[in-house]
């Protein structure tokens, strides 16, 4: 193998698994260390700059960082990264003076944002700070988009939501046009904006129009996302005692738990596929099960059963999954009799679709076969160069943090476009290196590895929260528990950096490394080298760090996979050939050079 080029910022970036997995690349280890040192405000600000909605995401993020966490590979449970974000948010001091402000002097560029969800708001924040004038359009009376209408208050209190939305809306430079439905994008195009950003989400919930009984039972059959929105805006305040929720995603989980709070006593979730293949996050399924909601898998709906004009239940076909050679799944009926499940109401949470009723062909915006806009994946530019898409409306349903990442990206593109620069000539990430040596054998960072298990977030008594949909279930980590959890972080951003010129090949690092990552070995092709290590490096997602050739003709090969970043190699190195260097990676935002 060739020696690893550690001057390429992407190499060490990839070692920080959580940050790498985060679409917005939030500097997770840094804010967790700040929590450990009770510097909550700064921890919050690192988040706010990067992911815009720390208080919101600290409750409802899809957490792509957690399955990526190195702790999963050396222990079992990841660091509770998401809930630590909430700790930073809960304990922060007044951050108002630290937030971005719109400058008094505007730059004369005007941008329209259609939809007031997380993607548009991110674009608004990034651009308002640069002096842009922004017009924000939404058909609802308030901002938030799906964060407001889809996420029940018992998971995300309205106050938290409003505070963080207002941080943006109050910056200056943003003019809101609520209760304004844009029925034709050409109306906006005609107004002479320098750029237009579309962040209208994937607003259409899938239905089962062809299923027998759908029409007859219509009154008691609801599309999940519409029903959740109706609950938020208080158009719906009650639900029948027996409720069936169809679907296995997070929306299904929100529907069933909301139903439990609106009078549903016997609420069941019915899933077509096997439980293990449900789309909902593990923890959201757990929360639903804790609220006495059974999840019945391998049931495919056959019909809505309506008697005398009233819905009395649904019939299902029991199936079992079968997999062909390519691993493709098909659901095959078991041959058993159909199952009748009685109910008073049905909520359909079987997926969302994109819909752009306000864009027609004559606008000049091209769409692909899946009904999604044709976009440049880097710039998010549509076929009309000054119209951009982001969030769910760009590539189909995703999640909040993806929407935020799109927002940052689109803002960069818009800023470049407005300055007549090449939108592909994008700003680089900001990278800094900071040595961690404090003394002979001491490090600035907390290098000790704790064996504490993942801490559990305390919750409000079930009976209490089921009575009121506005009572937040989770209480968040208390300060002490938050610190215990923060200590579990392995500081993956503190990199083990090897200088082959200083190495005397004494093997001290190999001998002390607890997880046998370090090898001194004859070089070979990657595939062969991976097998020859002390413990073969079979996790191909993790790189090998290979040095230049050492005096004995061997090379140092480090498998990054389960390195604990404990600093023992550097501590036991007599010549400081190993060093622990903190590597900070900050994704570019609009205005960065």
């Amino acid at each position, binding site marked *: 193998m060739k020696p690893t080029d550690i001057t390429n910022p992407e190499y060490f970036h990839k070692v920080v698994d959580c940050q790498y997995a985060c679409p917005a690349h939030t500097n997770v280890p840094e804010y967790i260390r700040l929590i450990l040192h009770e510097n909550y405000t700064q921890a919050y600000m690192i988040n706010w700059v990067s992911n815009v909605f720390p208080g919101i995401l600290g409750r409802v993020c899809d957490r792509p960082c957690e399955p990526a966490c190195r702790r999963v*590979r*050396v*222990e079992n449970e990841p660091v509770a990264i998401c809930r630590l974000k909430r700790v930073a948010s809960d304990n922060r001091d007044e951050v108002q003076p630290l937030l971005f402000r719109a400058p008094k002097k505007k730059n004369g560029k005007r941008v329209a944002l259609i939809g007031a969800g997380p993607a548009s708001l991110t674009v608004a924040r990034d651009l308002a700070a640069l002096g842009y004038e922004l017009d924000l359009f939404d058909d609802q009376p308030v901002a938030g988009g799906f964060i407001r209408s889809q996420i029940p208050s018992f998971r995300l209190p309205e106050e938290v939501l409003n505070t963080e939305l207002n941080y943006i809306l109050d910056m200056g430079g943003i003019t809101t046009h609520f209760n304004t439905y844009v029925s034709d994008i050409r109306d906006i195009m005609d107004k002479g904006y320098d750029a237009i950003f579309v962040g209208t989400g994937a607003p259409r919930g899938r239905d089962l129009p062809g299923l027998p009984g759908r029409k007859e039972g219509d009154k008691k059959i609801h599309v999940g996302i519409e029903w959740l929105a109706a609950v938020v805006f208080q158009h719906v305040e009650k639900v029948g005692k027996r409720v069936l929720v169809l679907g296995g995603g997070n929306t299904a989980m929100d529907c069933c738990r909301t139903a439990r709070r609106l009078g549903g006593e016997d609420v069941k979730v019915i899933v077509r596929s096997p439980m293990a293949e449900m789309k909902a996050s593990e923890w959201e399924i757990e929360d639903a099960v804790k609220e006495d909601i059974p999840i019945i898998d391998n049931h495919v709906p056959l019909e809505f059963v309506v008697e005398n004009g009233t819905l009395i239940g649904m019939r299902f076909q029991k199936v079992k999954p079968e997999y062909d050679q390519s691993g493709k799944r098909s659901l095959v009926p078991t041959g058993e009799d159909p199952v009748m499940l009685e109910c008073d109401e049905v909520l359909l949470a079987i997926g969302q679709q994109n819909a752009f009723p306000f864009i027609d062909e004559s606008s000049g915006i091209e769409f692909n076969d899946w009904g999604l806009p044709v976009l440049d994946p880097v710039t998010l530019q549509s076929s009309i160069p000054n119209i951009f898409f982001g969030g769910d409306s760009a590539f189909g349903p995703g999640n909040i943090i993806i929407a935020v990442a799109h927002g940052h990206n689109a803002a960069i593109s818009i800023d470049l476009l407005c300055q007549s620069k090449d939108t592909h000539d994008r700003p680089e990430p900001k990278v800094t290196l900071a040595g961690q040596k404090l003394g*002979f*054998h*001491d490090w600035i960072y907390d*290098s*000790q*590895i704790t*064996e504490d298990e993942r801490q559990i977030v305390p919750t409000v008594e079930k009976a209490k929260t089921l009575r009121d949909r506005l009572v937040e279930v989770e209480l968040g980590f208390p300060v002490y528990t938050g610190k215990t959890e923060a200590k579990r972080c392995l500081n993956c951003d503190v990199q083990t950096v090897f200088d082959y010129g200083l190495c*005397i*090949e*004494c*093997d*001290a690092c*190999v*001998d*002390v490394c*607890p*997880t*046998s*990552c370090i090898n001194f070995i004859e070089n070979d092709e990657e595939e062969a080298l991976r097998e020859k290590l002390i*413990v*073969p490096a*079979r996790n191909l997602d993790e790189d090998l760090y290979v040095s230049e050739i050492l*005096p*004995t003709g061997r090379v140092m090969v480090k498998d990054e996979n*389960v390195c*604990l970043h*404990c*600093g*023992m190699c550097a*501590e*036991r*190195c*007599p*010549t400081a050939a190993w060093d622990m260097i903190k590597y900070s990676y900050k994704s570019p935002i609009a205005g960065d050079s």
Partner: protein
Amino acid sequence: MSYERPKFRHPEAQKNKLGYTRKAYEGAISTLCAGCGHDSIVSSIITAFFEMSIEPHKVAKLSGIGCSSKTPAYFLGRSHGFNSVHGRMPSVATGANMANKDLIYLGVSGDGDTASIGMGQFAHVVRRNLNMIYIVMNNGCYGLTKGQDSATADKGSKSRKGAPVSFESIDLCELAILLGADFVARGFSGDKKQLLPMLKAAISHKGMAFVDVISPCVTFNNAPTSTKSYSWVRDHMEATATFDFIPLQQEILTEYDHGSTIPVSLHDGSVITLHKREDKEIITNKKDAINSLEEAKARDQILTGILYLKPDSEDFHDINQTTDTPLNQLTEKELCPGDEVLQAFNDSMR
């Protein structure tokens, strides 16, 4: 500074035949200087016992005083141990071995502990051919008292302070051969590839297995002008013969050309295969072994590898015809067999 190693290990770490990972053979974290050669020897000891699937409680580790003698704290944390008086490890090992011959005795000593204060003890434990592994972690200086030259420092060698050693050095391997040891080897802490099979062979050998390991003192004796430094040893190392250690249970898979490979069987059935160098004599001849050592010295080379081996040796128990049962397992019944037996014995003497 870290006072303990993190508890996590590689989740895919190999297990040995007993189902243990290497972790079961580790000890406390080393408190020696960073980069000390002793740590590499410790690591090789751990690997040897782990790979040979020896239960840790079947091992007794004994040591004297010095940097080397601290190391038993860093390996085999679940074995028996005795940290004795300076230079007196061989006496304690002898006593323990007499009482319980079933344990594997691993003595760890240094160049000061063996070649100076413990020289008399060393000489006698070797000539008695006690069944043990006697490792000398040899750095040519007194690391614990700020690096004064030891008795194994080569004449003319310069440590960090720059003054050449004025006295002749003691070659412990040559001495051990002369004193009657049947397994004598020399390794280098910076060459685990050679050290590991060497230790395994020493563990398998019955009788005194003497292993001198050159182990640079990074703090006081690692100047390029020192003959015990990493760079000097690497430049001047010469192996007697490369060798493989094949434990009893393992099938011999490699086909050797019989002209160049000599298999040597040890008492427990395991085999050392020596890949003979063209210009070298085989090592089972005492005279040749000493010659080779002297010739290498004359060329400014350090001869490493298994220097001398007599596989069918008689150990201290054989020579003394002691009981097969360890003393600690003998009950009053065996020790006091009664009047009749005494009478018969007395009669036999009349």
